[in-house]
């Protein structure tokens, strides 16, 4: 899955630590998501979307082969 979390975070002028604190996960988790190394749970995906006031599908996109 690809995502635009880093772009949304940069637009919001937030650090990874700020976003991590906002959605109650570790900074490493945010870093892993942004590097496409970890796909978050649905719950966390919705939390991120709520935080950035956008839709989950604005943040996450399924990779097609």
């Amino acid at each position, binding site marked *: 899955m690809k995502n635009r979390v880093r772009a949304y975070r940069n637009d919001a002028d937030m650090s990874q630590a700020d976003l991590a604190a906002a959605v109650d996960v*570790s900074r490493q988790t945010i870093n892993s998501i942004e590097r496409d190394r970890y796909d978050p749970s649905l719950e966390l995906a919705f939390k991120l979307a709520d935080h950035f006031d956008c839709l989950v599908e604005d943040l996450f996109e399924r990779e097609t082969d």
Partner: protein
Amino acid sequence: MFGTDTNELDPLARRKRDRRIFGGLIGLAMLAFFTLDYVGQPLVAVGAYWLFFVAAVAVVYTSDAIMDERDRALERHTSHTAVQLVGAGLIVLAPGLNALAEANVYDAPPILDGVVFGWGIVFVLWGVAYLYERSQQ
């Protein structure tokens, strides 16, 4: 940690604090064990070790910050990999050692039999845990 009344700290600060408490308790467990054992109190040493270890485990289970979903996913993947490795070893070693011994080719040392037996127990426990988890869903 320990409920919501101490959650005035942000999640990252709580995570750092709870990890320090966890590490400290493990350190104390080791220190107490070796120190008390050294001064000739082996039973008290084991008691103190268990006490600190139980406290450390309690921190993990009561803290809402020490592990997040990625930590739990990592733990699941690591456990899965470990079980797969043990399974592969068991598949090769259990019948292999028996066949080699019966053919008078190689007699494995008793410790290797113990290892295979221990791995077998791991799989029995895995099966019991699997059945329990399945019954809960």
